[in-house]
């Protein structure tokens, strides 16, 4: 069942992005930026964890999950070390994504030729 929910929720988030681009004439950069902020906002109210439990990858694959895991890591350390913990923990959960993006982006750019 989680496979169906992942498909539906992930698709629905992308439709919202498409509508923002078509109807409100936002550029892709603006859409992605607002989705990251929305993900952090949803996590601040505890909605995003519920969505991950419900839809699995449908909630973790869209870029909204980046904002969610930034705030999540910040709060986990923040509860231990106070306000300083926010700076310590903010990249804790997104580290895998950012590391792989830099590493693979660099390697691909090194070994492939630009197309078109």
């Amino acid at each position, binding site marked *: 069942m*989680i*496979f169906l929910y*992942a*498909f*539906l929720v*992930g*698709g629905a988030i*992308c*439709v919202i*992005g*498409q*509508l923002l*681009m*078509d109807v409100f004439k936002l550029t*892709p*950069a603006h*859409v*992605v*930026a607002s989705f*990251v*902020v929305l993900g*952090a*906002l949803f996590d*601040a109210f505890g909605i995003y*964890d519920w969505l*991950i439990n419900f839809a699995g*990858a*449908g909630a*973790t*694959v*869209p*870029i909204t999950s*980046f*904002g969610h895991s*930034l*705030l999540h890591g*910040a*709060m986990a350390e*923040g*509860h231990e070390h*106070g*306000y300083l913990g*926010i*700076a310590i923990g*903010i990249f804790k959960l997104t580290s*895998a*994504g950012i*590391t*792989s993006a830099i590493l*693979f*982006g*660099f*390697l*691909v*750019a090194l*070994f*492939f030729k*630009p*197309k*078109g």
Partner: protein
Amino acid sequence: MLNDPKNYSENIKPFQPRIPYAANCVRAFLSGGLICLAGQFMETFYIHFFHFTKQSAGNPTVATLILLAALMTGIGVYDKIARFAGAGSIVPVTGFANSITSAALEHKSEGIVLGIATNLFSLAGEVIVFGVVSAAVLGIIRLFIEQFF
């Protein structure tokens, strides 16, 4: 009337291509949904064989998707998918990998240091800036509120 600066956005309307709203939405839904479905298969795989939990399985999944998207950008397939998928290829984390890789590829001719490394985040940097700023602000607010309750 066309040169009237006040009604410019009204006047150019007949000259703009019509946007197929419904078709764009269906494409975004299908392609975005399929990417998330593929992610769900990976997540299930990581949970069963590498003992991740439901909350932590997103990390290796995102890393795998980023690897695949970077490779597809390198061989030029991702651009073709993006032309069909619209937001369905931008909103998932694969779009983040695509913007990093394509920015680096585009500036490859300027060298490894000044081209690739400097431009790696020229498109995707906004994601990290807005993410960190909003998460830091919201985190401070939440910690402040939690002190009193």
